């Protein structure tokens, strides 16, 4: 296995007496898309700033491609592209001129910059409006221009802070599609977002932040298992049989709760509908309704924070 792209160990940030990031640990491998979730003030943005070396850590260790962003900031910045929340551009310049400016700061020659910019603008489908002033761009176009900057710099790691915030559904879909292609091309992506469906649609793992701590790191299925004792919920309505008795032998069933005489709720680690139906029929019962749903990130997220508060 290759070395991790991002390695965070016991990272802590204090402002006076307040601890905003409290001993978090996270390892991200190449090509992963990791979602950072949590309420406002949970420490997500501060963690991002420490990853970029824009603010120093009070304690702990950060390694980006094996390098310390505080001691080797230029090397780290060369590898990392950052799209801040509500990314800002110079409105008086065109999209192309904005990118040319950052390309020069990144150290590209004019010829190389122009070639890279043309390719990046084409990939985010802004090539036809690249020479228009950014003041005329919609929010979605600005976000795509931000992604073009990452592509232009050929970043190995992309850190995206609320990339779809304030976008219409069409722009959101387009942006998510672009982010998926980034990961497909081997770029490691760290996404901070409040929009859970966004995170679920593109992320391979999620990291849940709460009050400066990282409460959970893993896949959505693992989160669902952790907070809901299983990833599937099955609602069963049947007559002439005790489903609690009939279903207990089915493999994968974690619990069965009777809602009333003819209605049961089953929690399972897999889709057990077929086995439950067979078990009910085998016991001579009549199945009247069977409905299953996998616990989503939204529900898992809510349960996680409800449990954390309790």
């Amino acid at each position: 296995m290759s070395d991790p792209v991002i390695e965070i160990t016991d990272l802590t940030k204090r402002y006076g007496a307040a601890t905003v990031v409290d001993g978090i640990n996270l390892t991200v491998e190449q090509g992963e898309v990791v979602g950072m979730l949590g309420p406002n003030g949970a420490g997500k943005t501060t963690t991002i700033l420490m990853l970029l070396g824009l603010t120093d850590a009070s304690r702990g260790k950060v390694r980006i491609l094996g390098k310390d962003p505080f001691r080797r900031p230029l090397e780290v910045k060369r590898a990392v592209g950052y799209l801040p929340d509500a990314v800002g551009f110079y409105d008086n310049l065109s999209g192309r001129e904005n990118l040319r400016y950052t390309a020069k700061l990144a150290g590209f020659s004019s010829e190389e910059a122009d070639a890279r910019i043309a390719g990046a603008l084409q990939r985010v489908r802004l090539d036809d409006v690249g020479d228009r002033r950014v003041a005329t761009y919609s929010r979605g176009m600005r976000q795509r221009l931000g992604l073009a900057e990452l592509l232009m710099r050929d970043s190995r790691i992309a850190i995206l802070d609320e990339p779809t915030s304030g976008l219409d559904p069409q722009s959101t879909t387009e942006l998510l599609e672009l982010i998926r292609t980034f990961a497909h091309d081997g770029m490691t992506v760290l996404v901070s977002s409040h929009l859970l469906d966004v995170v679920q649609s593109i992320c391979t793992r999620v990291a849940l932040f709460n009050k400066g701590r990282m409460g959970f790191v893993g896949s959505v299925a693992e989160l669902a298992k952790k907070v809901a004792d299983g990833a599937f919920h099955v609602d069963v309505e049947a007559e002439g049989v005790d489903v609690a008795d009939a279903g207990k032998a089915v493999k994968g069933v974690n619990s069965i709760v009777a809602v009333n005489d003819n209605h049961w709720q089953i929690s399972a680690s897999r889709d057990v509908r077929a086995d439950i139906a067979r078990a009910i029929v085998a016991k001579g019962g009549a199945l009247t309704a069977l409905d299953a749903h996998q616990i989503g990130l939204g529900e898992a997220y809510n349960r996680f924070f409800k449990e954390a508060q309790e």
Partner: protein
Amino acid sequence: MKREGSPLKGAITVALKEAADHMTSARMHLIMLLVLLTAAGAVYAAIDQIRQTTAQDAFLFLKLFTVARDPLPSFSSFMGFLLPLVAIALGFDAVNGEFGRRTMSRILAQPIYRDAVLFGKFLGGLLVIAIALVTLWLLMVGLGILLLGLPPSGEDVARGLAYLAATLVYTGVWLALALAFSTVIKAPATSALAALSVWLIFSIFWSMVTPFLAGILAPVDPFNPLTLINQFETQQALARISPATLYGEISQMLLDPASRTVGPVFMSQLQGALVGAPLPTLESILIIWPQISGLFAGMLILFTLAYFVFQRQEVRA
């Protein structure tokens, strides 16, 4: 541990972008138009006055900068008053404007240090001021040749260039002040107001306050005439806290070759001297060297303040 790479890598890119932005901004066009009109007015009035009174003067060109005719002040007085406005207009939103546009975090995420951003912004502003000053200076010389019908002497040019350099340093002090306010204060309007307040205090009110302060700090003893000198020197020292005073003294020494001192003169010091005889340019520069150093020091202190605050600033936008 030694820092990786140069802290100033990217500073020229930032400076050129800043300069280009200033050159094309309506704000800069308006304020330079104001400076140009007032300067042209002052020079035209000066030429009229010179023709009537001092046609035989050896330093006619320098008189263009210093001669005033009511109600207009001289060109150098105009510069001393208006150039801080130009500098403040260029620098009051240099840093907080980036935060306001939410471009700062994106720029600082590029492979450059913060040093480059701040230094580039200062350099960009100074570059625009230098271009404007050189243009103005050349216009002055052109108008002088055209209307006086005489070419400037070598001494005129040397003193004029020294004056140009000193003016750039003077404007640099105000640019550094505006930059410091733009770093410390988040709202651009507030930082502009703060810088303008300092400008008003030092340009207008400071000369009224210093006699009062000197009277308290060094009271005059009616039985000791030397205390009068002491009070005058105290007043002068206090006045020199203002960059406008330092610049006024520099202008006086450079543009009037007959000037021999910026302090009090005793009769004993004038014995044997040829009144009105010009000093060599280097002698004049030597006399005002402390004032030039003072302006440099002011500029460096203000820039260091901005640097110190900016390096420690939390970047979230």
